């Protein structure tokens, strides 16, 4: 039964992948080399050997990209064509047939300024138990962004799941290292461990408000590091409200 459902699910997954793959395929881009030469590697990494060199004035057809590399098709000896990979930086050494220069977004700090989305993962502690957090971010303005986050904290006595929506303000968006502040709201679900018989198996839900302060740092191509502290105020059914503190350290990628 389970495997049957899974097989159907996998079939639809493969279909989705193919659909995504076939969707509106990219423009063809033919460029001319303007520097003395460009190295062509056998694979999309600097470790792959250089097997060909395209020299000034030769044509290069750009096919696709992977991380910081572009797959190109070039004329080989005689009628043959060769396919290989060139560095992103090599694009700056090419031009369109009409002489226009090329630029590509590559996750540089300038591209960071015009990003739309971020995905972050973080690990840390929530009131002394280990916690993992996943955050999806929509970047609204240079300073403001909206986070949707999900945290799971698994302790010896309970399993806590926290989701929240919050508004984040990056104080100095133009700096590589910048502090940020956030406020938000969401829900905390707490389930006692199955082996704690007397506590029953009921899930406790409570809304919460949170405030957070953190620092983000532009590390390298497309990657940010972040460190954050957040304080959660759970609005419980009991007489007292409960305060939780979370520290986390994580990384983000941006698009």
């Amino acid at each position: 039964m389970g495997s049957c459902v899974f097989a159907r699910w996998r079939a639809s997954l493969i279909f989705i992948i193919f659909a995504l793959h076939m969707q509106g395929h990219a423009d063809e881009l033919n460029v001319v080399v303007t520097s003395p030469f460009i190295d062509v590697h056998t694979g999309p990494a600097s470790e792959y050997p250089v097997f060909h060199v395209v020299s000034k004035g030769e044509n290069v057809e750009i096919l696709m990209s992977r991380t910081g590399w572009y797959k190109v098709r070039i004329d080989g000896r005689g009628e043959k064509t060769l396919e290989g990979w060139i560095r992103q930086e090599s694009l700056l050494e090419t031009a369109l047939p009409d002489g226009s220069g090329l630029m590509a977004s590559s996750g540089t700090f300038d591209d960071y300024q015009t990003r739309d989305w971020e995905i972050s993962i973080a690990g840390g502690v929530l009131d002394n138990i280990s916690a993992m957090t996943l955050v999806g971010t929509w970047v609204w303005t240079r300073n403001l962004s909206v986070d949707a986050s999900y945290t799971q904290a698994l302790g010896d006595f309970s399993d806590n799941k926290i989701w929240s929506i919050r508004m984040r303000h990056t104080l100095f968006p133009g700096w590589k290292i910048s502090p940020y502040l956030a406020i938000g709201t969401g829900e905390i679900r707490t389930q006692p461990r199955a082996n704690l018989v007397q506590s029953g198996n009921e899930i406790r839900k409570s809304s919460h408000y949170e405030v957070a302060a953190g620092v983000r740092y532009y590390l390298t191509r497309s990657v940010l590091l972040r460190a954050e502290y957040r304080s959660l105020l759970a609005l419980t059914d009991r007489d007292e409200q409960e305060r939780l503190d979370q520290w986390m350290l994580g990384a983000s990628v941006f698009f």
Partner: protein
Amino acid sequence: MHRIISAFSKTNTLTAPRVMVSASLTLTALLVAMALSLSVVSNAQAQASSNAQSPDIDPNIERRDIKEFDIDSENIEVTAFAGVISIEDFESNVIYGARIAYHVNENLFIEGTYGATTAGETSFEVLSGGAPFLTEAQRDYSYYDVSLGYNFNGELFVTDNLVLNTDLYLTLGAGSTEFGGDERFTLSAGAGYRLLLTDFFAVRLDVRDHIFNSDIIGAEKNVQNLTYTISTSFFF
């Protein structure tokens, strides 16, 4: 996924220096005008100031002509896997799951994994012929984790003319395992081999160890659940 390449016309980049030249000329003219106005009689001053009437900034800046090209960028890898998981104390079972990875650069990738199976019986349960530790529902075993992977890029020479790109990679991550009615914080570490049959289709072999703290059969201990999987993956 697509990546934008923009092209800009080079001739227009000459516009900026020209604006600067005309600005500095204007500045010189202004200084001359000021010097003259201090020393020379009023009609000469009027003549000099009329020379300085050229606009400070030329408002007719040429538009930078930018064209954008959509280039297919394949940094996301979606994987479906099947394999065997050896659940400590609870036999080995077939496991299915899926992974999704984002390749940050040529070496680093971030990958999320979900897998599910059903655990078997402990040897005690088999030998005693009764007294099950867990209910059927509690035997459902599933886990997720988020891992950081590091690729060691390589090539596999199948024949003289057929060469396939490969990655040998190490992964380290954390996540959660749901088993015995509980979820447990789980560390996962492993290694794998990715054979790229085409630029967007690959076959992968993975070995992962999932370590968590369990008290299902009594005393609390660290359990090691080794998983061997074979998978197919697509880049898009």
